[in-house]
């Protein structure tokens, strides 16, 4: 567990809703979604959370993931400190569209090199922990800041919706034929999406928010399925909540698959058996943005915390048993929010944040 809290000096995102955090947040509170049929590949009729600006043919040597990173850079509302800044890139498959068009390369490493160039940071680390990559990258950044490994940390999450990943999740039977319904009793699979998000963290300074604690662990049970009883995930949650403060809500991983959502709800019930805090997932709006989702959850979580409200759950019809999800907007009882990531390999991550 990483205990020393860090300041959030800046945040940014690039999603199908645009590059304004306020506009994105407003869309979530309206219950809007980004799902459409992609034009740049055949998704076999599946809807995806697609960025219309990126949904067009590009050159053989270009990657939509790099374009997405450049869009994020152009939207940064903060200056990246020139001195002693370390870049942590969270991605699962990186510039995978290069491989789709015949360029054999380490697609995640390509995106790491491009990210270092685009953001002008010389010391860069790729962090890959499947769909828990985003929050794992934040946790690693917190450790480097706490131990004086760097003065500032720029954490970026980025993944695109691709034929490669769509075919893979479809092969596993993980995709819904309609749209994902996180925490719904009738949920039947995930919808893929794409996004990039960034956090500028510092050990000190006048930030607008704080990342208070982070913890990761591994179920060590099954390579693709989470532990449905949520035992190990609940340990990570408990570690991040080690003080007595009230928790305002939970931004869950909430992919809309039967197994993921059950594991999360079981884990939360172990900690909060009587009255679990309000639960919400971004996946009903953006789809599953893979390596971007952890960073995106924290960027938007800080905005929810600032506003003191949690959006209604998009896609929800009837909450699954035990899930404290709701289609209604809910007032937060505390500014402290918990964010969860769960990934293949049984990887779990919990992060506690608050807006100041």
């Amino acid at each position: 567990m990483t205990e020393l809290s860090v300041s959030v000096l800046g945040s940014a995102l690039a999603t199908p809703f645009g590059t304004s955090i306020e506009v994105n947040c407003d869309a979530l509170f309206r219950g809007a979604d980004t799902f459409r049929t992609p034009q740049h590949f055949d998704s076999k009729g599946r809807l995806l959370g697609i960025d219309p600006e990126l949904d067009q043919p590009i050159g053989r040597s270009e990657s939509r993931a790099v374009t997405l990173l450049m869009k994020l850079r152009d939207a940064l509302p903060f200056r990246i400190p020139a001195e002693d800044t370390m870049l942590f890139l969270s991605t699962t498959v990186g510039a995978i569209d290069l491989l789709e068009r015949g360029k054999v390369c380490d697609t995640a490493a390509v995106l790491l090199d491009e990210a270092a160039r685009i953001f002008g940071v010389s010391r860069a680390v790729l962090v890959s922990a499947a769909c828990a990559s985003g929050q794992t990258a934040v946790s690693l950044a917190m450790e480097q800041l706490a131990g004086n490994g760097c003065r500032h940390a720029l954490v970026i999450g980025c993944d695109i919706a691709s034929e490669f990943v769509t075919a893979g999740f479809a092969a596993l039977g993980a995709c819904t034929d309609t749209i994902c319904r996180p925490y719904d009793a009738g949920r039947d699979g995930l919808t893929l999406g794409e996004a990039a998000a960034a956090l500028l963290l510092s050990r000190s300074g006048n930030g607008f928010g704080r990342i208070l604690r982070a913890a990761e662990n591994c179920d060590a049970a099954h390579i693709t399925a989470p532990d449905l009883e949520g035992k190990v995930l609940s340990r990570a949650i408990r570690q991040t909540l080690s003080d007595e403060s009230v928790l305002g809500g939970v931004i869950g991983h909430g992919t809309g698959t039967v197994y993921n959502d059950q594991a999360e709800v079981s884990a939360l019930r172990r900690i909060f058996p009587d009255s679990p805090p309000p639960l919400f997932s971004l996946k009903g709006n953006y789809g599953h943005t893979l390596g971007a989702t952890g960073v995106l959850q924290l960027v938007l979580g800080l905005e929810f915390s600032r506003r003191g409200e949690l959006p209604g759950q998009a896609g929800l019809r009837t909450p699954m048993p035990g899930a404290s999800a709701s289609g209604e907007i809910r007032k937060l009882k505390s500014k402290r929010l918990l964010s969860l990531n769960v990934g293949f390999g049984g990887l779990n991550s919990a992060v506690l944040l608050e807006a100041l």
Partner: protein
Amino acid sequence: MKIKAGALITETMEVRLLNRGPLGRFDDPDQLRHALTNLVPFPTADWTDFGRGSPPVRFLMLAAVLTAGDYGAPLPESTGVFGWNGAGCTAENLRFWQDYVQHGRENGRGGLFVATLPTIPFGEAAIALGLRGPNAYFRTEKSTHELRKLISLRPAGLYLVGEVTENSVCMFLLEISGRPEEKSAEPDFPTLDRLFVHLENRNA
């Protein structure tokens, strides 16, 4: 940060341990797995998915068990497992994609897709040994000093750190103190197997 144990499996299936020395040469991963099952110092592992795993998965599972055996005591459940640099999963990505294209872009194969994440070998190693600490893969510049800077600031505890290259699989068991540390006295190496050979020669 202390290196407590280590294992190296070379391209020719020669197996060497940091503390216990050479273990011998084997014909293939399955022969090595059978040998380990019968050797007392090596921990009982869950080999359920061994035959199904891709070559990096099989070698990493073996390297993890070998390193735990070289340590000589049961690894605590809280032990973390990290992957670093190496070949990544380009070969696995290509295998899944070519198979999907060859089958008319209609149906991919789930088993091949799972292998396209660089953390999968390290997740399988954690399952094999029941290790529930943090688990992730990092790519940095090719420098064991850079890896040390990254790992030494993790919370105190034991961590398996491995690298799968085209020529070898190497894994170390590290003990992190949780306190700020002096700079490494070891020379800098681009890969873990080079560090292993250096430590082996120093111990000889």
